[in-house]
């Protein structure tokens, strides 16, 4: 056994100059980019898939999931609806109604699969793109709008929906989630009971580089916390491909911490659901964390402020269109005769209604009262903030008086 074989990694000898020249002269990827990108983004043999892009369903022995027509219809509906309001979010931004929108396009299966795998008592910690998880937790899509219209930093009661506020600082939520899961264990809510709880934490491929993600995994394994680390590898962190973050598929990190790790076809809603369900149940029993890498694709820009044409090729996006998460479910439903035209039409109508309601809500949102600036900085009274609030309101009243005269 030669050391060279002890671990997989790209092997090549490269000289600084070559790369610098190569990159300087053109935007052709350097040899290391090619090697690393191949490792990091290839689907690999390990990819867990149940519903193929062609709509063929092959049960997975390790991740059993009972599939019914009704259930598939439900998943289809979920995905169509979230895609619809996501697109509406994009248009609203284009029309100046929102200051920014963060699209989920392409990640519908990754989110609905995970979201529908959760039990009501489970708790989710999103990043900022998890509109589909919000949907599964029962948060009305209009509640998301405040963040993007700039009227609020959040818009729902995280306790009620067991869905935490969006976290924008990359990686932070992994630790908050790990801590919450520690609490679930300390509360005795792990085990075989029907009330056993788990936590699921969402983050991106780019986030895996952050120290907080690592520390989250260290703490979760140290305390055997019931948490699923769910990485949506959508191949891009703004303009940086996942190959910049990792030489190998991301789920491989899990083994080093001593926790199970899986790569699932993130555009396969059944696989996402089945694996997440297994993972939540596994950690719910008290065995500690599990990592899932949902291998998917960000079909749209990073946000409405982003211009992906500067860094990625249209051909790549075209390739992923063939792997569309919704289309394969539709094909399967049709081919197996599990849904008729009326069903599809009704979902479309519902989607249009949702979009209209979403838009309506957005354009009618009010600027919050000035008082909001000073509210909930602290839970109790606070001499200084209270004084600044009073002074400022008095200052504003001065203008009104002036105006009144």
């Amino acid at each position, binding site marked *: 056994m030669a050391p060279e074989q002890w671990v997989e990694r790209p092997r090549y000898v490269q000289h600084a100059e070559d790369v610098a020249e190569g990159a300087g002269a053109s935007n052709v990827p350097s040899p290391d980019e090619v090697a690393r990108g191949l490792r990091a983004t290839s689907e690999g043999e390990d990819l867990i898939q149940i519903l193929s892009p062609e709509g063929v369903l092959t049960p997975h022995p390790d991740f059993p999931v009972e599939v019914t027509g009704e259930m598939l219809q439900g998943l289809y509906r979920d995905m169509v609806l979230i895609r619809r309001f996501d697109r509406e979010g994009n248009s609203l931004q284009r029309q100046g109604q929102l200051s920014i929108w963060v699209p989920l396009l392409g990640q519908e299966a990754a989110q609905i699969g995970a979201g529908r795998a959760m039990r009501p008592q489970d708790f989710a910690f999103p990043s900022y793109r998890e509109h589909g998880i919000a949907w599964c937790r029962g948060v009305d899509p209009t509640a998301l709008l405040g963040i993007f219209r700039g009227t609020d930093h959040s818009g729902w009661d*995280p*306790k009620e929906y067991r869905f935490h506020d969006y*976290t924008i600082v990359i990686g*932070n939520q992994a*630790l908050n989630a790990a*801590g919450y899961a*520690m609490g679930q264990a300390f509360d005795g809510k792990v085990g075989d009971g029907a009330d056993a709880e788990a936590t699921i934490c969402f983050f991106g491929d780019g986030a895996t580089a952050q120290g907080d993600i690592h520390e989250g995994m260290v703490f979760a394994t140290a305390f055997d916390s019931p948490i699923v680390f769910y990485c949506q590898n959508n191949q891009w962190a703004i303009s940086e491909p996942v190959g910049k973050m990792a030489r190998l598929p991301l789920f491989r990190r899990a083994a080093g911490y001593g926790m199970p790790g899986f790569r699932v076809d993130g555009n396969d809603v059944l696989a996402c659901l089945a694996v997440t369900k297994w993972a939540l149940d596994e950690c719910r029993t008290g065995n500690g964390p599990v990592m899932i890498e949902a291998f998917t694709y960000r079909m749209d820009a990073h946000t409405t402020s982003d211009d992906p044409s500067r860094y990625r090729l249209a051909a790549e996006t075209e390739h992923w269109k063939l792997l569309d998460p919704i289309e394969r479910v539709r094909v399967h439903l049709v081919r197996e005769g599990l849904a008729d035209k009326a069903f599809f039409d009704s979902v479309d109508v519902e989607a249009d209604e949702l979009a209209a309601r979403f838009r309506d809500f957005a354009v009618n949102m009010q600027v919050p009262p000035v008082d909001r600036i000073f509210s909930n900085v*602290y*839970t109790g009274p606070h001499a*200084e903030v209270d004084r600044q609030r009073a002074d400022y309101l008095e200052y504003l009243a001065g203008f009104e008086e002036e105006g009144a005269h």
Partner: protein
Amino acid sequence: MSAESVTLAKALNLGLRASMEADPKVLMMGEDVGKLGGVFRITDGLQKDFGEHRVLDTPLAESGIIGTAVGLALRGYRPVCEIQFDGFVFPGFDQIISQVAKVTYRSMGAWSMPLTVRIPYGGGIGAVEHHAESPEAFFCHIAGLRVVACSNPADAYWMIQEAIDCPDPVIFFEPKRRYWEKGELDTGVRPDSTFSTVVRRPGDDVTLIGYGATMPVVLAAADAAAAEGRSPEVIDLRTLSPLDLGPVLDSVRHTGRAVVVAEAPRHASLSGEISARITEEAFYSLSAPVARVTGFDTPYPPSKLEEQYLPDLDKVLHAVDRVMDF
């Protein structure tokens, strides 16, 4: 229990114990806080008596400690995080500023964040680099936090309990070089809010303002100044954010002169803020500009030089002379 003489370290230990007894949701967490009882033994005996799930020896990672404490607080716990030394809070700074301080605001009050971060701070113990810093200004500048510093055993005992009871996050500064100084502690009667500023010694000529680690220096300087015929009034801020300016302004309006004493470097410090606030609110009462005795705008020096770096009796007296002779 009636009054007894205990060290500041022991008073903190008793205060933590009282909080843990009063509320099963109170947790201790940090590096070496369990079996070892912390490098300063502040949590001594707590794991033995309350168990491993209430006194958590965590992995060695401060962002992890603070970040998981946030999650535990969301779950209904009241975590008390120990940072081993002042210089090691910074890996956790991001979680403090982005989550600890902002969760309540972001969620419009849906969450509260009853989390305490205990930081043994300040110099004077002959330690190596990163073990003698005074980072309070960083936390005072973060809206959403409350910041306090205790200076004697009785305050330590009550303030730590008030911090833990507080529904807001509290950064709790412990003057490490005073851990072994003794003082009277009467655990019988809980005082009014200790997150308030107190006059430690009444006087007429000049207001000496300190907090935490510098209080013994300030009190000693006051004695010396009194021996020289001055009449200094001594103030212990206790709460650094928000400031409790009332007692400070009352004093300065009476004396017309003020000296602020803190170990931290001077530039963009809390001492500057105090000086600015006093001037804003009591301009016409001032006979001299507020003076500051602080650390220098340098990193904390090697410990053989720390006595030169730290505010001491002579420096405070010198400042008193300056404001009196202005």
